[in-house]
């Protein structure tokens, strides 16, 4: 088993989720002592992104009058400034930048909410020290994510965001897969 920075058993969970906590991607292979950037650089998501296999480029979206094809993930400030990662302004100086950072942080909370919901819903996700090998928590987390997605599918029609979108009152930016969605990439010691 891996150790975290605090000396306890720990393994990093990298995930990308939808605004309704649909899990697009999860990666459970890195030791808990690794930094998020090191985890990202060995993640299949990153390898697919730099290899041109993900995200699909067939869904253009328009932001501020410019049409783009490369979708992006919303991340926090520690990640490098790649074209498929959208981090907040490091030192916001104007009101526009402050507003953008607030909005970006609000969308990023969807991922934090996902981890809390997973731990609350499936208590196995909280105790990696009970496993005897690295592959066991990875398999367990995959099963947990599948069960969680089934729960999301069964309850999605009652979500507030869906009802707002159906009523046409959602003011999110139309950005295809990840834009109005809050896909994020982050890790947490579980």
């Amino acid at each position: 088993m891996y150790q975290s920075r605090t000396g306890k058993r720990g393994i990093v969970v990298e995930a990308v989720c939808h605004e309704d906590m649909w899990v697009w991607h999860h990666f459970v292979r890195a030791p808990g002592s690794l930094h998020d950037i090191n985890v990202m650089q060995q993640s299949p998501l990153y390898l697919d992104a730099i290899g041109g296999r993900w995200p699909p480029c067939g869904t253009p979206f328009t932001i501020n009058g410019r049409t783009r094809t490369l979708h992006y993930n919303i991340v926090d400030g520690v990640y490098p400034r790649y074209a498929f990662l959208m981090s907040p302004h490091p030192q916001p100086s104007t009101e526009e930048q402050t507003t953008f950072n607030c909005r970006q942080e609000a969308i990023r909370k969807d991922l934090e909410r996902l981890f809390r919901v997973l731990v609350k819903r499936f208590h196995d996700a909280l105790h990696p020290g009970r496993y005897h090998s690295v592959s066991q928590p990875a398999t367990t987390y995959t099963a947990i994510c599948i069960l969680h997605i089934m729960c999301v599918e069964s309850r999605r029609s009652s979500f507030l965001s869906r009802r707002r979108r159906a009523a046409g009152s959602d003011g999110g930016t139309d950005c295809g897969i990840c834009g109005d969605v809050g896909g994020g990439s982050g890790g947490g010691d579980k």
Partner: protein
Amino acid sequence: MGLTVAYVVMLEAGQVVATNRAVGHQLEALLLPGHLRLAAAAPVSSAAAIDNIDPVRNASPALNPAVHPPAAGMAAIFDAWAETQNMQESERLRADLTADTDRDRGELLAPHIG
């Protein structure tokens, strides 16, 4: 047989074939199982894809089919690598998002204000 299927799929999907790569590479990309599945579906806009989610059965989020299938070959990989690690593009995207968010500020805050 496989080549025939690939051509039929390309014609049905109405895809524009890139001219700067060998046909063999395009067919190789199309004949990969995942790419063939993407190419076979009809092109749909993102708004239409969201509308197509069946509220009764709660289908998974719709992935729009790729109009241009992922290209194969080292040149395409290098192009994708350069595109994803472009810092200037990241800065431009963030500036555009900042302007777009600020323009829609009132609409974004309306549900929270009341």
